[in-house]
């Protein structure tokens, strides 16, 4: 059976070149980077090389990159670290209602600690309005955190404009760029961001490693304490092989950004057009234009997303409903609800996210299999029958 992996926003396979580069650090180069002797120094050097590569991908200086255990830790650190380091200036934070839970839950945690948080609404297409950000700003605002690309519906947020606004007002600006780095051009200077979260396993690197970009001069506290690693910004023995893998993945992503971006965008459009053409009562969620080249998100009315997923899985196709992190829960996606999509429609949503391993034939296969699945499921759906009557 054909295997088609369409869940690249959840995680990506590690590239062989990345694994290759990691292996020596898993085996013989096992030194602790904090050690004085040469084994440790070799590990240290490898980390610095990786840091330069990751910095290169986002137009940052190497010393502005702090390695973390992943995107979630980077998001937690950005919000908590900035909130506590700047609370004397004010206690107001602005974010959006469609952020990843790593930002949303952290913001809610800070609310319980006495911070005020504004969760901005979005347009029906899933976009944050710059005017809304502007209106929300008060004298107390110390941090704005808006994601670059939404992980569920792929919308690309107006980060540059929000960043400009934040800079004019002297407010620290963070973007969760876990879904954009390595997929679309990301440059911290052009985007006007002070902090940016990225993750290795979304760009064909290993799980368990990510980073927070911290613009020089940004006031932030560490999250993990107890060791002088990462210039005292993140304690804990460095995940050397993971970091090396992240570096290689970043380098490769940078080299292929343009060509892969173009190729995937064409595949994505083929998928979107094909689905909309072949299947009735379906809608594309998110903005058609301001959209990640890898994301397609549909709502198929009168059917459950979960049933579609299981049927797809039996045909060898891996997709998801909502984000992987909450796919175990039965609540409809907070992102779709924030976009004003009704509960019952949100329940029938499926996310397909493309990647390096996908081909034109993969899309043909999906377009062949999916209409049958939807038709079969709808034939069993009392809702569909009622609507048809």
């Amino acid at each position, binding site marked *: 059976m054909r295997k088609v992996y369409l869940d690249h926003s959840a*995680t990506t396979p590690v590239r062989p070149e990345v694994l290759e580069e990691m292996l020596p650090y898993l*085996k*013989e180069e096992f030194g602790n980077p904090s*050690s004085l002797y040469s084994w440790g120094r070799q590990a240290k050097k490898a980390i610095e090389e990786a840091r330069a590569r990751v910095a290169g991908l986002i137009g940052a200086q190497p010393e502005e990159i702090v390695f973390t255990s992943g995107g*979630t830790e980077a998001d*937690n650190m950005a919000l908590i670290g900035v909130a506590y380091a700047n609370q004397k200036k004010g206690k107001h934070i602005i974010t959006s209602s469609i952020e990843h839970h790593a930002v949303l839950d952290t913001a809610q945690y800070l609310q319980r600690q006495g911070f005020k948080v504004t969760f901005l609404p979005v347009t029906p297409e899933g976009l944050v309005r710059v005017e809304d950000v502007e209106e929300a700003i008060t004298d107390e605002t110390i941090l704005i955190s808006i994601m670059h690309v939404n992980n569920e519906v792929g919308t690309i947020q107006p980060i540059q404009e929000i960043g400009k606004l934040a800079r004019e007002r002297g407010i620290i600006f963070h973007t969760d760029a876990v879904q954009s780095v390595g997929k679309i051009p990301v440059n911290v200077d052009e985007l006007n961001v002070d902090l940016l979260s990225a993750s290795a396993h979304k760009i064909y690197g290993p799980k*368990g490693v990510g980073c927070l970009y911290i613009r020089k001069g940004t006031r932030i506290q560490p999250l993990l304490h107890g060791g*002088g690693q990462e210039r005292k910004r993140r304690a*804990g023995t460095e995940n050397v092989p993971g970091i090396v893998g992240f570096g290689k993945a970043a380098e490769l992503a940078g080299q292929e950004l343009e060509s892969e971006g173009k190729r995937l965008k064409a595949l994505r459009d083929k998928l979107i057009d094909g689905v909309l053409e072949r299947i009735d009562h379906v809608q594309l969620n998110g903005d058609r234009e301001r959209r990640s080249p890898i994301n397609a998100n549909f709502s198929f009315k009168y059917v459950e997303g979960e049933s579609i997923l299981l049927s797809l899985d039996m045909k060898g196709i891996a997709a998801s409903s909502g984000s992987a992190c909450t796919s175990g829960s039965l609540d409809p996606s907070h992102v779709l609800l924030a976009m004003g999509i009704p509960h019952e429609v949100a329940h029938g949503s499926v996310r397909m996210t493309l990647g390096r391993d996908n081909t034109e034939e993969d899309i043909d296969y999906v377009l062949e299999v999916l209409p049958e699945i939807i038709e079969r499921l709808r034939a069993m759906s009392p809702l569909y029958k009622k609507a048809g009557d």
Partner: protein
Amino acid sequence: MDMRARSGWLQPNWPRGEGQGIPVVKWLQGEKNSILDERIELQNLACGRAAMRKVIYLDNSATTMVLPEVAEAVREAMEKTYGNPSSLHSMGVEAERILRNAREEVAKLLGAQPEEVYFTSGGTEANNWALRGLAHALKRRGRHIITTAIEHASVLEACRRLEEEGFSVTYLPVDKQGIVRLESLERSLREDTILVSVMSVNNEVGSLQPLEEIAKIVASRSPALFHVDHVQGYGKIPLPLKKLRLAAVSLSAHKIHGPKGVGALYLRQGVRIEPFLVGGDQERNLRAGTENVPGIAGFGVAATLARKNLPDSVQRMAQLKIRLAEGLLEGIPGAHLNGPEPRAGAPHILNISFPGVKAEVLVHMLEEKGIYVSTSSACHSRRQEASHVLKALGLPSSHLEGAIRISLSRLTTEEEIEEAIRTIKECVEELRRL
């Protein structure tokens, strides 16, 4: 020799250990051990970048060599099982299975239930989480925490942070052997004490803490929870979780020949804790973030391998450490141990000073000869300050300056120890001549 009376590690009371009861004598008689011989070969192989000369790695408290089987498991997970464990499709289910197996193995080596093990990014996160998470979950009952002056920085710094947030922390003093003073614990316990955190094995001098006595004292006067930083003790000394009524235990993979970037926190069922990382329902809603599947797979294999030859692998290590101590103390005039007597301390850590010799110079000289040791803990070996542990032991400054830490693993061989004794002796003599 009566080692059993002085420390716990020779008693075959390992929770679910295998191969128990094999007497130390067997090794002392020099009986061939095929697994061991294989390991020696592997280690020399792994040290390939220094293939021109033999490498003797004796800095296992900083980090350990990743075993080939572990590296293989990590590689395999990266190549084949790349799904996100939270995904519903079969790729995700595969990844979830890896987590389940690893959780069982990590739990087994600790003597815990799999559902009591929560994976983290390492020992530092586990310690930070335990301190912060328990303190904040319990703060309505009280705001006093007790720890020791010789904890790892990840516990001490977490405590400092809590102090800034309005908690009060007592740092218990230790005696010359690096063992916590029980009478000061008794005096420090208060009505509002909510948490006691004591490491099982000190990472710099290898002292074993009297956890049973501590648990008894705490239990008899206070409802405070007990956390143990077991990063240096995991797989090396037994930790009777139930008997000590432990609420939380921190573990790290890369100290037991597993990969860096992964650790775990054991939480007794029913213990309430606030999450440290939020934003995803991984690890039963207590630790957000996509699981480091390959790292966790490696951790599982490392735990399996560590359990394989218990307790004789640890007894062997202890005997080698004792031989090392004796060799250095007898062979080098003025040499003296920092911390516990070799027979009383952890089976793998030795801290020793050679008056008149600067530790850093000695470490570099030894490195040139292929022997890797360290000055203090790796986490601050780049700092120039004297170790907070050695200071807490009340050592004179002459001892502080010259202290090196030599730490073994179960892969360390008798030949390596003899070679290390000879080389250290030569180096110290040479440095003293200068």
